[in-house]
């Protein structure tokens, strides 16, 4: 976790949130599997960073990975791999699972 009042230490963790790591690794995995080249990825990501960065300065932390996530969702939607509807459905299912699972029990997706 980062704290806005703290300077970045020299040994700051690679990822400040688990989802950053998950997202990074999924994107690398998809590229390695041939779904897109890394050049295609950086071009799409760079264009989106530029667009969003024009609206508000990005600090390189959670907002950076937020743009990364938007880019990956777009690429997967435009290539027909995962539609926005599919995303909405599974996300709602996860939310329901989290909210209905008693504290201390593992959260599982209801089928």
């Amino acid at each position: 976790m980062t704290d806005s009042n703290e300077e970045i230490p020299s040994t700051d963790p690679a990822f400040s949130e688990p989802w950053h790591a998950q997202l990074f690794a999924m994107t690398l995995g998809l590229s390695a599997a041939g779904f897109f080249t890394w050049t295609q990825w950086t071009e799409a990501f760079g264009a989106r960073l530029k667009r969003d960065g024009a609206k508000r300065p990005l600090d390189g932390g959670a907002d950076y990975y937020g743009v990364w996530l938007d880019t990956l969702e777009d690429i997967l939607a435009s290539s027909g791999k995962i539609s926005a509807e599919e995303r909405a459905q599974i996300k709602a299912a996860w939310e329901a699972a989290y909210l209905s699972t008693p504290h201390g029990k593992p959260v599982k997706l209801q089928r």
Partner: protein
Amino acid sequence: MSHDPTDHGPDYLASHGHDKAAPPHSHLPSDPALRVKTLETILVQKGLIDPAAIDALIETYSTRVGPQNGAKVVARAWNDPDFRAALLSDPTPLLAEMGLIGRQGEHVVVVENTPAQHNMVVCTLCSCYPWTLLGIPPTWYKSDAYRARAVRDPRGVLAEFGVTLPDGQSVRVWDSTAEVRYLVLPMRPAGTEDLGEAQLAAWVTRNAMIGTGLPQSPAQGEAAP
């Protein structure tokens, strides 16, 4: 753990990395965390990614890959003139031999600091970075502030990192791409002539290899990393 007071970003580049939307329930993950979980669920269900491969990537980039890799390369270059010459002309075979080649097909170029020229690396497009040598880039490297200002005002940025260069030393800024990523080979500090590679590596900070810092005596930190 070392705490090197100069090997961090200036305050204006400091992270404010909180998720903006606080979850309404304490055990409900943040919105982006849920969206990432959603993508992963669907990709695994469709057989498009292997969860074990994803876990292995996370493990590698969270713990095994970091600036210590680049530091080994720099220390070896300081100690071995043949290695240094080969590294500057074509680092790929040497890095492959050391197991430090990335999977994105990127090419690493090593740029050497000299009394006449200091080198500094940025990625104005996004955050291209020599991952296998330096790990995941620090937050400031990914910030708009650094990405814009490194090109426009490199000396100003360097000053904020506590680096003041002599007047006669020019600054060259290298803009990374998906295909070409840069590693700065800093100048070997005076007084390190008797040190071996392992001891030399302790002088090589992450920022020294990005060009926003200079090598630091490990004695200046609390302890050697």
